[in-house]
């Protein structure tokens, strides 16, 4: 990592409160190109809120937020040097725990809708991209099927393809295997692993500790709305400094 490289996302002293409840409390984070950042921590530690702040699905209460060096404004449209929430979101893809596929659209339409409506691509281009992506996630033959007819693992792979169709600079994955039957987790992790090999920048919230250990370039341990510990998988998972992280990890080794 060189000194001159600009982080894709850079936040300083980010906070988020829901009413009186402060969920994030002074987050500093630089996400560098090509990184695979894994957020771990007990439930309620703020990791899901943090990842949802990274594409402004949750608007932070305060703090600085930059995307590729540009300040992000809290309005939909970009203006001047400031990038709007709309433009931020189409460059920061997100995959959800419960897939959130559009049930009234076929698999193919789920993937092409964003490029058609938001990027104003023409139909042929959008469809070609979608078919390439469907091929990559191994679901080309499901193109005309509606989401209800897919298994959880298939749905999640379509959701990943939908996010990638926007050609994002970063992909956010929020507990993407948590709602899956155990035997379907592998096929989704496989897709993520292959994406990581292509150099895709990703942030993932996960409970799959061994997956995080294998693939992440950096791990962040969160607790009570703060970043409690950060480092390589080696440092964090094998030599945890704090007692809290030790206790947290102990539950997974058991």
């Amino acid at each position, binding site marked *: 990592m060189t000194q001159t490289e600009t982080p894709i996302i850079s936040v300083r002293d980010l906070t988020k409160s829901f009413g009186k409840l402060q969920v994030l409390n002074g987050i500093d984070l630089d996400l560098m190109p090509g990184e695979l950042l894994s957020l771990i921590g007990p439930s309620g530690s703020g990791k899901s809120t943090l990842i949802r702040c990274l594409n402004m699905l949750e608007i932070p209460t305060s703090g600085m937020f930059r995307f590729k060096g540009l300040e992000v404004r809290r309005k*939909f449209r970009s203006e001047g040097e400031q990038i709007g929430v709309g*433009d931020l979101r*189409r460059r920061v893809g997100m995959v*959800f725990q419960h897939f*959130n596929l559009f049930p*009234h659209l076929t698999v193919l339409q789920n993937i092409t809708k964003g490029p058609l409506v938001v990027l104003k691509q023409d139909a042929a281009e959008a469809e070609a991209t979608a078919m390439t992506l469907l091929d990559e996630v191994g679901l080309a033959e499901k193109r005309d099927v509606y989401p209800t007819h897919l298994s959880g693992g298939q749905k999640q792979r379509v959701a990943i393809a939908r996010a990638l169709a926007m050609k994002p600079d970063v992909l956010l994955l929020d507990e993407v295997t948590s709602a899956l039957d155990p035997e379907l987790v592998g096929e989704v992790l496989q897709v993520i692993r292959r994406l990581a090999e292509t150099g895709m920048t990703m942030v993932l919230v996960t409970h799959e500790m061994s997956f995080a250990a294998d693939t992440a370039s950096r791990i962040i341990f969160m607790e009570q709305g703060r970043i409690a510990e950060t480092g390589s998988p080696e440092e964090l998972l094998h030599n945890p400094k704090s007692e809290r992280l030790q206790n947290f990890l102990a539950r997974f080794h058991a």
Partner: protein
Amino acid sequence: MYHWDFYTVLQSFDLFLIGIWATFIYTVGSIAIGVVVGLLTCFARLSRFPALRILARSYQELFRCTPLLVQILWAYYALPMVLGFSISNTTAGLLTLSLYVGSFYAEIFRGGINAVDKGQREAAAAIGMSGPQSMRYIIMPQAVKKMLPAFINQSVIQVKNTSLLYAISIAELTYMTSVVNSETYRPLESYTLAAIMYFCMLFPLTQIADQFERRMRRSD
């Protein structure tokens, strides 16, 4: 024993046809205007401006909590006194029916939109869609399916509500039936025939509504 005589009544069938036509026009007209009013009211209710929300809510409650017949009479006889000029019974009738059904439609539309899973809005936002884009391409297509049975039911009621226009002498089916009755002195045949005609118009509609409801339950 009563001697049924539909023949005399049926000789005035052209009068019934005039009535059916007017009933049809007032129904379609008030539903069309009502849908627009309902949509505007619905979006006002969902808006982030409190003034708009209160205004929409007040309109809805005013029309939902007073009898339609009173509204019709008020629009025709009382409203001109407020305005200072008279309005035709056609205008008063159509206006009242539209605003009345619009207040109910607004509630049906709002229910349909709120019934769409919150995750759908988030997924649309996450691929960079604006609020209006998300509403048009993601939320509305799903909401329409959810609101359709209630919408059809309200529209069935609307067909029947046009009969209240009788009170301000609009020549819809009920009014025309009273004309036939006064010409033939055959109330039993006249009003029986009117009831049959309303039934024939509405029964297919309720069947369609049921069909939609069944299909929706199956696909869920």
